[in-house]
């Protein structure tokens, strides 16, 4: 069972929720798909870490063979190739690795080489398997890393996998939730939080994912995110209070459920609610 945790806005508590849910469920898997800024591993401090480099294929030119016909330049929709001063130049950063230029080259002057864009780490923290993707700085897209991370994970039916998603609602988030069985949206009680909650709400509807909302940083005041849920008839899975102690544990990269019984209860209860929702959804969609 795969549960994706997402939010639209950054800093609402995706990592807090996914790390603590994974830790509360004992035997589980945690996958950090926020490959641009992965933080889950800072909390889990996994042991026995195995690392694998992730590379993409980038086109390579043999200028001895190139006859300057420019067919590749004309074909490339991404403007990754240019023929300047009798030389074919490849702009590696914008190459999408589609392979089209190789196909159209009549001189077989183009081949591919591997370019490392980041890595995947796999380790264990207590009973949690921790998978982390890390994009190298300066690289534009971590999608190949996310694909690898999700392919790496073969969950057993009775085991939970928590997918910590990147912020936003673009292609990279879509890739992260694609195979999820359930989505948990984390929202904070601000004007910005509600605006971005609305965006991921649209996203999970677009992909027909069952979902519910966790309200984080709740104060006694009026909560615009809660109001949004009521108005749109969205299931509220739980409420996490705005709490200095929790904030302090979190800022020191401590897993709250392992530090304080009160948070273990909070997240265990949230976990039960989420698990119930997931099961309930399964029976309605697969009768």
């Amino acid at each position, binding site marked *: 069972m795969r549960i994706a945790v997402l939010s639209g806005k950054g800093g609402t508590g995706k990592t807090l929720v996914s790390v603590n849910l994974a830790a509360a469920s004992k035997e589980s898997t945690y996958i950090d798909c926020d490959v641009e800024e992965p933080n889950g591993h*800072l909390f889990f401090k996994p042991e026995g870490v195995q690392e694998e480099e992730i590379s993409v294929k980038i086109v390579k030119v043999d200028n001895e063979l190139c006859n300057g016909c420019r067919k590749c330049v004309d074909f490339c929709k991404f403007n990754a190739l240019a023929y300047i001063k009798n030389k074919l130049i490849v702009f590696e950063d914008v190459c999408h690795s589609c392979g089209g230029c190789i196909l159209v080259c009549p001189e077989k002057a183009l081949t591919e080489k591997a370019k490392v864009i980041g890595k995947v780490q796999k380790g264990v923290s207590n009973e949690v398997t921790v998978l982390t993707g890390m*994009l190298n*700085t300066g690289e534009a*897209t971590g999608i190949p890393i996310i694909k690898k991370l999700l392919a790496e994970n073969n969950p057993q039916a009775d085991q939970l996998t928590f997918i910590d998603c990147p912020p936003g609602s*673009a292609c990279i988030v*879509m890739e992260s939730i694609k195979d999820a069985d359930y989505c948990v949206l984390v929202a904070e009680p601000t004007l910005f939080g509600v605006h971005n909650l609305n965006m991921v709400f649209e996203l999970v509807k677009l992909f027909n994912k069952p979902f519910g909302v966790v309200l984080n940083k709740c104060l006694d005041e009026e909560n615009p995110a809660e109001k949004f849920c009521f108005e749109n008839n969205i299931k509220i899975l739980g409420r996490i209070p705005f709490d200095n102690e929790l904030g302090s544990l*979190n800022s020191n990269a401590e897993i709250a459920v392992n530090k304080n019984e009160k948070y273990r209860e909070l997240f265990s209860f949230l976990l039960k609610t989420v698990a119930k929702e997931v099961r309930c959804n399964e029976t309605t969609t697969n009768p």
Partner: protein
Amino acid sequence: MKQLLILSGKGGTGKTTIASAFIKLADAKAYADCDVDAPNLHLITGWNVEPKKTDYYGLPKAEINLELCTQCDQCRQNCRFGAIKAESHYKVDPFACEGCGFCAYVCPAEAITLVPAVAGELMLYSDREKVFSTAQLKMGSGNSGMLVTEVKKQMKSAEVDTGLAIIDGSPGIGCPVIASLSGVNMVLIVAEPSISGISDMERIINTAAKFGTKIAICINKYDTNIKNTKKIEEFCNKQGLPYIGSIPFDSNAVKAINKGQTIVDIDCTSGTAVKEVYHKTMNLLFEQGGG
């Protein structure tokens, strides 16, 4: 025109809160929101005119003409993005298609064409003296870096007479951030005193440094973890990066934002602190030989 970009690496550290305060303090005539995935700056910049809206076309998407399709499977076998699905008939998954045109090239029946696809919407707020450029990427869309470039182009095209532009960036270090970095004179990084925040700050500093952009750092909510705030200060000293101030956690900040106000519109501790960060930023941005 000097361009200041506000970034953070980690999300939710206060980029938009600080950008909106700077815009107010500078009475900025040109500003933009480059967080096209999750734009928020328009919520507190107080424009009460309707923006000029333009559809943004990203790369085109492949489309299969079923009347011509002979189901030879060439397109599906050659697509590197897994975007061709062979179910009851052949079809293109528009979310997976990157618009490379490989399938159209290999199709022996000429059944595939590339059609323009709307990937987002650009919005331009302007009056005689001010301009605000922003955009919203379509759900699940790619090409966010290209849209960011359009947002900046749109801001400049308004030809407002000003020496300063303030640009609110997006979280992360990937394509929208890289696109927002191009051509700016200085990056202000809003750090957060958490272990996660420090890790993310180091990654965004490395990314910005690759572009040779001038960098300055401030800490938001510095008093939520004094130990980590010290670590960030020490890091800046060691790296020779200008550390230009800290802003306290302030529950009034949320109250102001939720009313659609900036933190300098009300009398509050975060508002007072951000003024100092603002003055130091402007000194660095406009210093002789800088940028």
